[in-house]
């Protein structure tokens, strides 16, 4: 039932393919988490400044993307993204055919989803920092950049880290969905291998273990980071 011999490295098994697929999953997760964090910071900024229009746009974005299934967002960006990119290129006078590769599309799609979750976490962390500290920093004569880098920033990171760790886990698991775009990450490779070998159970259980391994280890990593950032409080 469970065929261990199909998992060896080399031409006889799928070990090396699965390893590359795992690396691809890690790459996509890290890229989309990074892009998602940048997007989230912009979203938080748009929500916190006193401008009604940016706030409306940001709220619309987070509400819609969080209310729609992830798979639908990925389908929309995967199938609709190309025409959007070509439309933008047309504005700049380029009329050729552009096709984004699956990695780019997948990263953008997952980043869009993960940014909505991160933005809530970062917003809450920002609001959790005591306003008196900003006033104290001002009283000490720090300028705006110094206040952000030395007073607000480290504390925002400390408050946000547990939540960001959760978002990371969600993002990592969401990358399994971009297998529908044809990007060869763990899930896609699993489907290919199980179709070839007619042994879905072997490869799906392997995939489950790979994901479990990734989530557990990255969870440990975030625990260490959290400890590091709350040094002053322990």
């Amino acid at each position, binding site marked *: *039932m469970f065929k261990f011999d199909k998992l060896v490295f080399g031409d006889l098994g799928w070990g090396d393919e699965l390893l590359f697929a795992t690396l691809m999953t890690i790459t996509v997760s890290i890229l989309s988490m990074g892009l998602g964090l940048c997007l989230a910071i912009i979203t938080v900024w748009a929500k916190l400044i006193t401008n009604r229009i940016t706030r409306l746009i940001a709220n619309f974005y987070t509400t819609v993307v969080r209310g729609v299934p992830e798979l639908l967002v990925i389908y929309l960006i995967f199938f609709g993204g190309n025409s959007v990119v070509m439309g933008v290129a047309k504005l700049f006078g380029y009329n050729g055919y552009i096709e984004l590769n699956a990695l780019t599309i997948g990263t953008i799609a997952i980043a869009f989803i993960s940014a909505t979750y991160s933005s809530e976490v970062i917003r809450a962390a920002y609001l959790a920092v005591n306003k008196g500290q900003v006033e104290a920093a001002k009283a000490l004569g720090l300028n705006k950049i110094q206040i952000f880098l030395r007073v607000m920033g480290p504390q925002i990171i400390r408050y946000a880290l547990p939540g960001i760790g959760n978002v990371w886990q969600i993002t990592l698991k969401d990358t*399994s*969905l971009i297998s529908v775009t044809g990007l060869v990450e763990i899930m896609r490779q699993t489907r290919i291998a199980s179709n070839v070998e007619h042994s879905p*159970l072997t490869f799906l259980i392997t995939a489950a273990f790979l994901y479990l391994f990734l989530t*557990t280890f990255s969870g440990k990593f975030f625990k260490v980071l959290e400890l590091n950032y709350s040094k002053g409080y322990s």
Partner: protein
Amino acid sequence: MQSLLSYLNEYLLFRNFVEVIVGLDNTLLLLVVSLPIGFVLSLLFALGRVSKNKFISKPIATYIFVIRGTPLLVQIYLIYFGLGSIEFIRESFLWYLLREPFWCGVLALTINTVAYGSEIFRGGIQSVTKGQIESGLSLGFNKINLLRKIIFPIALRKVLPSYGNELILMVKATSLVSLTTYMEMTGIARKIMAKTFAPVEAFIAAGLLYLFLNFLMVQFVKYLEWKYNPHLRLEQN
């Protein structure tokens, strides 16, 4: 009315909308079966998780760890493709259920929501203060009444917001069942896209319906919060 309909029919988005809405009952069917079962099992598993008996709490903790650490897609595929490849299951009565993508979807969604739900309920149960339990015991409550009249009401009230989140995640998770050829809203949207080559219109039609479903879910949870937290309501004069 007739002219309005024929006018709207000119629009692809409207036609897609009419087609996708047919899949709404399949989506709802998944939820209606898996959510109540998931709720009851979550409560039982949460009780098992906080139990002092290690033979009960350890396996449940492992189950929660494994399910929360793997993507739902892997679980759905494991049940749909994986279980079907075992000879033993194909010959047993289980095959009557497991050969249908619908029951595979229900099974996967239930397994998934129980893992998250029981972790949420565990938090709620552990947040019931010792004094409340002790006062219940001193009033002569037996174990079942203690659970039914003191622990569950207090715990459920506390976890309503986070369980509401889980319910919304479940609404969204039903879309993954479309990958096992089950024709719910996402599956139909995908089919429309293949037919009309207009992806944006097809997926926006489905997206609007999911948004509406989730909106209803949020209102439902809000109503429950209002109903079960009478002490937090503003006085109405």
